């Protein structure tokens, strides 16, 4: 009898080791060649091979959309946004169903956000892009050029015909830029495909577009911990807040890091389409929603729109939001506060 107990006592640690061996392990992959951003994939899987399969599905999906949304490069056998832009003012061209679906979503996003997310903002974005990339002789686009460019950003110039799957830009000066919608759209598609392939626990982070899949398969944890960066780079604590989420997408739009300075003034990259100038109501806006493409659209829109208008838009999508103002005060939806670890009203 006692001998048996001793054997069980001896076996218990072995059982413990066996149990640890069966637990999912954490793996990571990253790449910096898509969407002009750095993307990391974290996953909890039973083996490295399994993780690599999911990471490949995610990378391939994002590569596919990267090429579809590219406005600078052509790819063999692919009709992409560059093809459409180069053809502006010409006759309609046939596009793939995937690109057509995206452009339909882009037009929808325009009406949802009262024009603050405009896929046809290309002419204005190019003027700012040209200034931003000239590091030595920093200047901002002159007002006359911006006003002229704004004349060619009408969303109605983008004509979609679902019956023939054709697209046409009726204004020869018009051009498309998927910027404000591209990453969220691609990440959502990638997450869906990875999930269909069996990926049940992980996070994709494409430069601030975060998509959580399931919950972390680690003992004592039932949600992913996401740190929200402090927009004030000089602050002692680099984190403004930490939130606990599972199966949701979190997207932050901020005025820090991506900016350039002219005569002591910062000009960042999120433009208000009505003024063609950088939006300046907030330091950052974080949006939480189940769907990454909606979170991405809303984070840009809410960064541009006044707080009250943004709040009612967020409420209509049941999105949770954290707004950080210029003086680092903040507002948040009730649902956001419930996920927050540090912010108390």
């Amino acid at each position, binding site marked *: 009898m006692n001998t048996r107990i*001793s054997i069980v*006592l001896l076996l218990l*640690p072995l059982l413990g080791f066996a149990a640890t061996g069966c637990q999912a392990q954490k793996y990571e992959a990253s790449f910096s060649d898509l969407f002009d951003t*750095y993307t990391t994939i974290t996953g909890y899987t039973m083996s490295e091979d399994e993780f690599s399969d999911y990471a490949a599905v995610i990378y391939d999906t994002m590569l596919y959309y990267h090429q579809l949304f590219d406005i600078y490069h052509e790819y063999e056998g692919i009709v992409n946004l560059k093809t459409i832009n180069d053809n502006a003012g010409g006759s309609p061209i046939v596009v793939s169903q995937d690109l057509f679906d995206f452009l339909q979503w882009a037009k929808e996003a325009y009406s949802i956000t009262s024009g603050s997310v405009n896929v046809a903002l290309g002419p204005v974005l190019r003027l700012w892009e040209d200034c*931003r990339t000239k590091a030595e002789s920093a200047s901002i686009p002159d007002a006359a050029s911006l006003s002229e460019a704004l004349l060619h950003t009408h969303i109605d110039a983008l004509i979609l015909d679902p019956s023939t799957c054709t697209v046409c830009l009726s204004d020869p000066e018009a051009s498309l830029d998927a910027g404000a919608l591209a990453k969220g759209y691609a990440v959502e598609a990638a997450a869906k495909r990875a999930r269909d392939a069996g990926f049940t626990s992980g996070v994709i982070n494409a430069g601030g577009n975060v998509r959580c899949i399931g919950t972390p398969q680690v003992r004592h944890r039932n949600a992913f911990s996401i740190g929200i960066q402090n927009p004030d*780079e000089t602050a002692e604590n*680099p*984190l403004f807040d930490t939130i606990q989420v599972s199966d949701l997408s979190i*997207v932050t739009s901020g005025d820090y890091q991506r900016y350039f300075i002219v005569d002591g003034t910062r000009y960042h990259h999120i433009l208000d389409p009505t003024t063609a100038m950088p939006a300046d109501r907030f330091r950052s806006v974080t949006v939480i929603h189940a769907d990454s493409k909606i979170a991405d659209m809303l984070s840009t829109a809410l960064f541009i729109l006044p707080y009250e208008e943004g709040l009612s838009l967020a409420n209509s999508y049941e999105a949770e939001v954290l707004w950080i103002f210029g003086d680092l005060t903040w507002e948040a939806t009730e649902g956001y506060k419930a996920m927050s670890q540090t912010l108390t009203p």
Partner: protein
Amino acid sequence: MNNHRKFFKKTDLLLIGGLCVLALILLLVVTLSSPKGTTAQIYLHDVCVMTCDLSEDSIFQIDQAPEVTFQIQDGKIRFLSSDCPDQVCVRTGFISLAGQTAVCLPHRLVVRIISDSPSDLDVII
């Protein structure tokens, strides 16, 4: 019979005691061998080219990208300077929390703070 039972009790006690000592030794080994302080990895074109301990202050370049300078100070790391046009990497400033990254896309250079602790943040945005 009585003696017999006592004998088993002694070995059981020895066994349990021995296991406890073993567990303590293992715990000490694991605790002492785990790295003190923070570690950063530098990636070039998505390949890790350097792992650095952040406990010693230094200013350095890597051979593959001599136009970029890194600085380690007080357990933190940053891009001190870079010849890239957007300067996003330099503006990111010092990073020190596991999950934090500083990225220079023009050079395809990434600095990441790494950690194996399950209590760390999954992502920082």
